[in-house]
């Protein structure tokens, strides 16, 4: 089945398909595209401290989105079973830069030297997975959106708040890439 796909799926196929999720959600039920609000819905559902979430009717507001999220997981499993992108053809410049950071294994979707159960309690594993994950959850809740809600839906709707947020995304991403990764990986 793998030979049915050339990896990666071309940007000019993937980009429009992702963009069409925005009108599709509106046409299905006038819902806004945005993944990170699911974190808030889940927190509201399980929070020991419900005070912060009073008035957040997570089932009514987020039920559809949690179902969408479950779909993402199932779609990803299907992709990984049917036609897994196991060996990425990466830019030589990126490979060289990551080599200098000490990475040697470039197979799979994320570096195995970092994103493995056995690395969870190493410094680089903990910083990448636990600290990184925390920042994703804190930052998206604070900014009121992530790549889907701000960078795709918000920018497409010409919302100034989303443009500010996307500038923040890149400022943070560049700082982590050029300042934090060299500190963490060596």
């Amino acid at each position: 089945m793998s030979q049915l796909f050339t990896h990666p799926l071309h940007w000019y196929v993937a980009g429009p398909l992702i963009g069409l999720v925005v009108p599709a959600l509106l046409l299905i039920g006038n819902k806004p595209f945005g993944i990170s609000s699911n974190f808030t819905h889940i927190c509201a559902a399980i929070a020991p401290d419900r005070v912060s979430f009073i008035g957040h009717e997570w089932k009514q507001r987020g039920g559809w989105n949690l179902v969408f999220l479950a779909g993402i997981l199932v779609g990803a499993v299907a992709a990984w079973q049917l036609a897994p992108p196991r060996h990425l053809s990466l830019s030589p410049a990126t490979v060289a830069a990551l080599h200098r950071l000490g990475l040697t294994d470039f197979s799979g979707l994320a570096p195995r030297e970092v994103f493995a159960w056995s690395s969870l309690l190493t410094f680089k594993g903990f910083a990448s997975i636990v600290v990184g994950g925390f920042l994703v959850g804190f930052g998206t809740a604070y900014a009121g959106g992530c790549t889907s809600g701000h960078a795709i839906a918000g920018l497409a709707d010409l919302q100034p708040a989303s443009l500010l947020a996307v500038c923040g995304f890149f400022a943070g991403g560049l700082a982590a890439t050029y300042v934090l990764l060299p500190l963490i990986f060596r």
Partner: protein
Amino acid sequence: MTLVPYFLLGGLFGFVLVEAEVVSWFRIQEMFRFDAFHMYGIIGAAVVTAALSLLIIKRLAVRGSDGRPLGLAPKTLGTGIRYVAGGSLFGLGWALTGACPGPLVALVGAGVPVMAVAILSALAGTMTYWTLRPRLPH
């Protein structure tokens, strides 16, 4: 109201995220190092497609089953601090994990199960935000 269409649409989205390698830590590094066009092409094409779709929906004044016009609610700009500060903190996390929220979930099913820990950590981060919210500038 049935939730099946949301599930199918999410499935398509997750499938595309994996096949286009958007979920890859390596592709995110290529993007932040400006070494490849791939991610910029995807985000750019997605924004243009979504923008044209929104324009058409507005032009045709399409309404939902409840009679309200279809569209996205405008986000309150305020001082903008929450977008810059929150956005930058998310950006740090985006580069560290190599994934934004959708891909974090996709990766659990695409050969990187340890990302489940990153999701739990993200939930802790979101919980922390809602706890600190009254004391944070917005």
